């Protein structure tokens, strides 16, 4: 039996849920809905950043069988507002990931010198793409993206979507919160529309 890439059953916290979802390898699930419906909370629970009840599995392995840092290293969450822990951009790409980051930066339309400069000089859109690259260089089996192109113009959005499509082809599963129905249709095969609380098929 081939296990699903990501599966969640009865996933809930005090603030959101319960959620049930199943993603195969290379599948993309779009999550839409009004602000405050709990879209980001779902992603945070899947990354095991917020306490939750219920269970979820990565490639058939339950979360409690995987140490938390390893789980998050493989089910990587990119929040809408990225955080930076060093003043230099390059410090966020340890060791060999810096070279991979340079290649990806070109693909998503980022200027060459950005990786060698300070974080403070980045625009919102540049930060957003660099935070995505930070996740991509880890080559995780699952990506949890919170409005990955929210701060980007049309051209940059197309470039980012092309990179994401490559990952999907390579087997990565993506859960993507988006406000754009077009983007949901372009990338995702599964769609969830979140109403007040529970996750229901659109």
């Amino acid at each position: 039996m081939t296990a699903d890439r990501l599966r969640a059953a009865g996933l809930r916290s005090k603030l959101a849920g319960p959620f049930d979802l199943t993603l195969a390898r290379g599948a993309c699930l779009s999550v839409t809905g009004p602000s405050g419906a709990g879209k980001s909370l779902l992603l945070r629970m899947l990354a095991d950043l917020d306490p939750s009840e219920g269970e979820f599995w990565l490639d058939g392995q339950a979360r409690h069988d995987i140490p938390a840092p390893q789980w998050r290293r493989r089910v990587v969450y990119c929040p809408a507002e990225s955080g930076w822990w060093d003043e230099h951009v390059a410090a966020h790409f340890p060791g060999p990931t810096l070279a991979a980051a340079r290649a990806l930066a070109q693909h998503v339309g980022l200027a060459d010198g950005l990786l060698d400069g300070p974080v403070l000089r980045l625009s919102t859109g540049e930060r957003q793409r660099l935070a995505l690259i930070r996740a991509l260089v880890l080559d995780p089996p699952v990506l949890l993206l919170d409005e990955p192109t929210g701060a980007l113009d049309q051209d940059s959005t197309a470039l980012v979507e092309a990179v994401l499509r490559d990952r999907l082809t390579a087997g990565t599963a993506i859960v993507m919160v988006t406000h754009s129905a077009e983007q949901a249709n372009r990338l995702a095969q599964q769609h969830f529309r979140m109403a007040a609380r529970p996750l229901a098929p659109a």
Partner: protein
Amino acid sequence: MTPILLSPGDIAIAASLLVLDGAISVLLRLDLHRQLAIAGLRLVVQLVLVGYLLRAVFALASPWVTLGVVCCMVAIAGREVAARPEQRLGRLGNYAVGAGAVAVATLLTVVLALTTAIRPHPWFDPHYAIPLVGIVLGSVLNGGSLALDSMLGGVVRERAAIEAQLTLGVPFRQAIRGLVRASVRRALLPIVNQMSAAGIITLPGIMTGQILAGMDPLEAAKYQILLIFLLSGGAALAAVAVVTLAAARLTDDRQRLRLDRLTAKRGPRTH
């Protein structure tokens, strides 16, 4: 040389300076004379009471009474450490962290001093143990409260940076390393200042006291040096204990950042 003992008359002469303070307050309309009078009275009553209390405790020379006094002092200092930060850990976490850190840091420092450098007989002799605990507590209180304030304030301010690391699979300990370092550093700066300024800008209190009590200045200096080293150790131990205990309460078995356990202090503290 024996110490020059003070008579009530000597104190009364010094108290005339407080009257001068009051006169200045009235003349310049500072509106401080009431507060000056109350504070001056409190000073006299508090210190005389402490003097009587210590005299009684010294006379008893009982290890249990000494321990009781030390425990009270530690509990009060722990409460002060807990009260400083704007942020509160849930379930009385600030008090647990404050009291735990103060107790560990003070105990280790004072026991080290009493069993090695000072060595009274018996080692828990209240003549030595209680003043020593008092002076170490001052430093422990300072270091502990600065570290806790820096840690709890910083973890809220740097939430995005800490969680960004967690999302990439960095263990919690590593994700808060920068904050831990900054908090301990902040706690140690006052003692560094104290050491570098000692003797040049101010004559430290202990040394002044010992010289007035008739001790040779060089002997008094040695005492002061020993004590400031103890203070530096106390401050560092308190800071490390505070950040360790606070960090444990800010995370859980899945190495999450649990800011839901923090609440902001409601309004200004009323006395």
